């Protein structure tokens, strides 16, 4: 079943067209990688999927589980199972990590007509996932992302993904700023969430992450369009040849 279907998508930011006819289909159970150089439109794709204001769809469509995504607010998308692991998770002083997790989880549950979980129940669920991602109790008590290292922030993103159990997870440059140990830890966290019901879109500049999260399909994004598609071996070809050569080959 197709989880996500993007057809001839054009997106403008501040009146400037960034995505210029992007088409992509992702089925449940699949992991797709989007690779592209800086400025190719990778982050724009992730933001437009999550519903960020200022990313205007000028033509084309995004259908998520038979629903037009463009009509939904970011919080509605989250409740319906879309999760974006952000490249730069924000720091929010004055809101503890645990309070944030509880508020977000219950907001999603409420939107789906499910009952709120009490603090103890949320804590239990968080602890189940926190251990393997090395998210400490101390981190959970601190203000959200405040004073967290780059690795801690990314681990917390994956913890949220595990907690919210999304249907479609988008990982935007989750590898950026991570050393190899942190990268492995994050990749393991992602791999344990692979399932036949869940689709993932892994957005990255480098092939490195794809050694650990092995994709079913690889798409190369350049100047707002997908210029090549292939299996996981395409990532290695990119690594060997570089973006410039692939872009030239495709032209």
């Amino acid at each position, binding site marked *: 079943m197709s989880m996500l279907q993007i057809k001839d998508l054009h997106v403008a930011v501040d009146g400037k067209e960034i995505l210029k006819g992007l088409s992509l289909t992702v089925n449940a159970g699949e992991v797709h990688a989007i690779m592209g150089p800086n400025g190719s439109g990778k982050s724009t794709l992730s933001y437009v999927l*999550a*519903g*960020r*204001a200022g990313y205007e769809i000028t033509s084309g469509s995004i259908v998520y589980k038979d629903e037009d995504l463009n009509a939904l*607010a*970011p*919080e509605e*998308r*989250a*409740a319906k199972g879309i999760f*974006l692991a*952000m490249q*730069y*998770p*924000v720091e*929010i*002083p*004055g*809101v503890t990590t645990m309070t*944030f997790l509880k*508020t*977000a*989880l219950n*907001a*999603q549950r409420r*939107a789906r007509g499910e009952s709120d979980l009490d603090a103890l129940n949320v804590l239990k669920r968080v602890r189940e996932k926190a251990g393997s991602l090395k998210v400490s109790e101390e981190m959970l008590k601190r203000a959200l992302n405040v004073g967290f290292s780059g690795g801690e922030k990314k681990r917390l993103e994956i913890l*949220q993904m595990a907690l*919210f159990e999304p249907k479609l997870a988008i990982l935007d440059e989750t590898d950026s700023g991570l050393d190899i140990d942190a990268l492995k830890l994050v990749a393991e966290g992602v791999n344990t969430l692979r399932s036949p019901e869940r689709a993932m879109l892994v957005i990255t500049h480098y092939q490195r992450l794809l050694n650990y999260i092995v994709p079913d399909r690889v798409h190369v994004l350049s100047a707002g369009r997908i210029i090549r598609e292939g299996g996981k071996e395409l990532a290695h070809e990119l690594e060997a040849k570089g973006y410039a050569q692939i872009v030239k080959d495709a032209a």
Partner: protein
Amino acid sequence: MNAALSRLDARRAEAAEQFRMRGVPHRRVEAWKYSDLRAVTDADAVSNAGAAQWTIEHRSGDVEFVDLSSSAQPDWVRAHLGALKSDSAMGAASFAFAHAGFALRVPRGQSGEVRVNFASAGQARVLIVLEEGASLRYVETVPGHLEGLQNIGTEVRVAENAHFTHARTALTSAKAVQIADIAGTVARNGSYRLTSGAFGAELSRLELKLSLDGEGAEAHLAGVGVLADGTHADVTTHIVHAAGNTRSTQLFKNVAGGKSRAVYQGQITVAKGANGSDSRQTAKALLLGQRAEADLKPELEIFADDVKCAHGAAVGDLDVDSLFYLRARGIPEAEARNMLIRAFLEEAVEEIANDDIRALLWQAVEDALPRAMESRP
């Protein structure tokens, strides 16, 4: 009439003269640039404002109490009342005209707590004396139903090793003009901690002038302002680091909705020779209403060499990245805004060590927030 009492009368006459000379402050007076008191009241109204009603709601520990409207005053009142030289016209008026108010003294080494409610318009004077090693928790409230002009002048004397904790909550009273003028001195290793909640009036002003007179003296001021449409709240502070190794911190946070105005003026003076002193001040405002305004003015005057001073001010709207992050995690926009506004204010409240005071102030914040938020056009 004995000599000491006539000295008190002389001080009172001097204060009346000071008010007569200066008149009601207005925006061409630098210290009142952002809060034009003369636009909402005049000198006759101030001098005829009468006595403000006050109720001591709680008094515990070892605290002496004197009603200033009675004719017999103990020596310590005669020695201190009106003795702090201030250049504040409204401070002078609170002393000169009403003959109302009270004095508190905590004897050497003792401690206590006092809660007072200033329920009506008018003027009153408060004198607080903490002797060596004493401590006092003083909680002041102004109710939301206040109408008209209220002008409360407070003098505080903190002796060596004494600790004064002062909490103030003035609830929203859009038909009131509400002035609190505080002058204080802190001796060696003494401290003054102020927590203020201002929830908007036609015009409200908290003016605090504090002199850190002895080595190791400290002042820590924190405040929140939550303003609904049509209200104005001004916090003006002047901390004088008169001695070496003195420390002051200030953190004031305002949320301004509708067409409201938040003002913070924070002057810090580090006197010649006050080496090793350390001062920090931060003032921030979130403008929720498109016609809301904040004027934040930190000001430093440094005459010593070896000092640390840090100050910052910022005015803005809620951070769009934070708002998107919370919404992308499933938190609806209104709830996300709410969380971020609370988080913004929280920083100025979380430092309050006493649970009751923190709860009192936070409850007032909770009560005031919906009105400040609804006025977003």
